[in-house]
C-alpha cells in the first residue's frame, strides 16, 4: 500500500446525488470483482470500482483464444464470463460492505426483462451498491449487448424501465460502434439516465498470418487500449457538446495526461481498463500524479478540467 501524498487540490466529483472521492475509477471487466489483486492495489483509494458485467445466470464465456495483443491495444472476447447475479449477491456484496470505495455494479442482459430482473434482485437485498452501469455495448455476445447500444428506441425503453426500478445512479454504457453516438446518449438522457459512460470496446479482428487462424475464437472481439484513445476522446467530446448529464470517459487511459485529456474533452470521471492488466495498481499511481498535476497547474479542483479543452474552431 502506498502513502497518500498531501492533497491540496479537491479531487471530488459529483454525479447525481453521489459524491466520489476522486475521478479515477476502474472499468468493468478489467478489474474482476474488485477483490482479485489485493497485494498490488489499495482498492479503497479508487474513486469507484465498476464490477464485471453480471448476467441473470452464470456464464461460462467464450472458448479460448479469448484475447490477443494488437498495436498499442488488445482484442478480447471473454463473452461475459461471470458468476451470475445470485452468487454476486451472496458472495460479493458482503465483501463490498467492508470497502470504503464506491461500488458500481455493471449489468448485462439479452433482453429488457433480464436487465430488470437482475436489478430488482439487487435492489431488494442491498444498499452497498451506489449505482448501476448498464452494459448495452458488449460486442462479444450473440444476443443482446450491443443490439441495444446501436438503437435509440431500445436504449430509451431500457433506460426508462430501469429508471423506474432504482433511485441509485443509473449509468448507460455506450458503444462506439455506431454512426451517431450522440443520439443514443440523448435517448438515455431523456429516459432518465443519471450519466453515460463511453466508450466500450471497438469491434476488431486479428489474424495470425503464419497459421492463417483467427486469433480470437469468436472471430471478432473488442479492441481496447491506447490505440482507441482518440476514438474515446472524440466520442466523449461529442457527447459533451449535446448532453447535459455527466459523461464518464473510457478508452485507452494509461497515465495522468490521458485522464486530463478525457476530462478536458468533457468527462466528469474516467475509467481505467486495459492498463490494469499491465499493472493492477496503476490507478493509484495515476491518482497520485494527477494530484501533482493539479497542484503544478494551480488548479484548485479536478472539476476545473471538465470540458476545458480549447478548440480552434
Amino acid at each position, binding site marked *: 500500500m502506498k502513502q497518500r501524498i498531501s492533497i491540496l487540490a479537491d479531487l471530488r466529483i459529483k454525479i447525481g446525488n453521489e459524491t466520489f472521492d476522486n475521478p479515477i475509477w476502474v472499468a468493468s*471487466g*478489467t*478489474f*474482476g470483482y474488485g477483490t*482479485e*489483486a489485493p*497485494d*498490488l492495489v489499495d482498492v479503497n483509494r479508487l474513486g469507484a470500482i465498476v464490477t*464485471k458485467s453480471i448476467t441473470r445466470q*452464470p456464464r*461460462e*464465456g467464450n*472458448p*479460448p*483464444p*479469448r*484475447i*490477443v*495483443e494488437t*498495436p*498499442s*491495444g*488488445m482484442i*478480447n472476447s*471473454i463473452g461475459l*464470463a461471470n*458468476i451470475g447475479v445470485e*452468487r454476486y449477491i451472496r458472495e460479493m456484496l458482503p465483501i463490498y460492505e467492508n470497502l470504503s470505495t464506491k461500488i458500481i455494479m455493471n449489468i448485462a442482459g439479452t433482453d429488457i426483462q433480464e436487465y430488470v430482473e437482475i436489478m430488482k434482485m439487487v435492489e431488494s437485498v442491498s444498499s452497498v451498491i451506489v449505482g448501476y452501469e448498464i452494459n448495452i455495448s458488449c460486442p462479444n455476445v450473440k444476443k443482446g449487448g450491443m443490439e441495444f447500444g446501436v438503437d435509440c428506441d431500445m436504449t430509451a425503453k431500457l433506460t426508462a424501465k430501469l429508471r423506474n426500478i432504482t433511485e441509485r445512479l443509473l449509468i448507460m454504457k455506450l458503444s462506439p460502434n455506431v454512426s451517431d453516438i450522440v443520439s443514443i446518449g440523448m435517448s438515455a438522457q431523456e429516459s432518465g439516465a443519471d450519466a453515460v459512460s463511453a466508450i466500450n470496446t471497438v469491434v476488431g479482428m486479428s489474424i495470425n498470418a503464419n497459421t492463417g487462424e483467427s486469433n480470437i475464437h469468436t472471430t471478432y472481439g473488442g479492441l481496447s*487500449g*491506447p490505440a482507441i484513445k482518440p476514438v474515446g476522446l472524440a466520442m466523449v467530446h461529442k457527447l459533451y457538446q449535446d448532453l447535459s448529464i455527466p459523461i464518464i470517459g473510457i478508452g485507452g487511459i*494509461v497515465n495522468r495526461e490521458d485522464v486530463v485529456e478525457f476530462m478536458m474533452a468533457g468527462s466528469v470521471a474516467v475509467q481505467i481498463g*486495459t*492498463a*490494469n*492488466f*499491465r*499493472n*493492477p*495498481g496503476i490507478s493509484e499511481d495515476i491518482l497520485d500524479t494527477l494530484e501533482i498535476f493539479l497542484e503544478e497547474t494551480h488548479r484548485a479542483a479536478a472539476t476545473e478540467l471538465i470540458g476545458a479543452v480549447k478548440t480552434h474552431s
Partner: protein
Amino acid sequence: MIIERAYIKSNREVANNIWEMHFEAPQIASEYSGSGQFINILVMNAWNHPLRRPMSIASVVKGNISIIYKIFGEVTQLLSEKKVGDEAELMGPLGNTFSNWKNGTYPILVGGGVGLAPILNLKNECDTHHVKYDIIIGARSGDEHFMDHEPEKNIILSTDDGTIGVKGTVMVPLEKMAKENENPYLFACGPEPMLEAVRNFALSNHIPAQLAVESYMGCGVGLCQGCVIHRQNGEIGRHSYHEKYSLVCLDGPIYEAKDIHFG
C-alpha cells in the same frame, strides 16, 4: 505477489534463438514456492505492447531468478537486446507448482522447445532433494539443444532430424522409459502437440502426469478472464468459477493431465 524492478545480471544465447536471462529479484525470489511458477515481464515503458509477457521461472538461487526464452516476436526480441545492468519490471511469482514428485513415484521429466524452463527447474529440485528421475528433452534439431545427451545419467535428448540423441519426438524414449520404471509420474512442458501426445499416452496407460500449459495471458492475476483452458471435469481450481474453463494464471499453469483438454 509483487511487482519488482529487477536488474538484469546476464543475458546470453544458449542455443539457436534460445536465450537465458538472470535477474536480481530478491522479493519475488523470497515468495517463490516451486518449479512451475512463472513471472510476468514488462520489458519497456512504451505502450505499444500493452501486455506483459509470461515466462516460466527456470531457477531461483539466492535472490536471483532465471528464465529461458525463445525469440518469437517483438517483445522477446527486445528482451534479447537487453544488456547486463539494464532493468525489467517483473510481476510474480505467479501460478501453482509441480507437485507429488517427491512422494515415492518415479518422475519422468519431459521438455520440448522452450518448455524447458520449468522442467530444468524441477530437475534441479529433484537433484536437491535426492529424488531419482529420468529427463527427456526434445527439439527439432541439434542446434536448439544446450545440454548433452547423457543416457548413462538418464538425460536423453531427442531431435526430429536425429542430429543429436534419439531421432524422433520425445514420445519414443518416453514410452520406453515409462515402461521400464515402476510408479512413473510424468511431468511435461512444451508445445501443445507434445503435451497432447503425453496426455494421451498417460491417460491410455493410466500413468499420472502433470502438464505445464501455456495460454495467452492478459494480466496473469485473474483480472481479465482471458487465459482459460478447457476443463476435463468440474473439480479443479479455487479460482476458476466456471465448470468448462480454468484460469491458467491462477489455477495453472500446472494441471493433472486428466483434468484438462486442449479443445
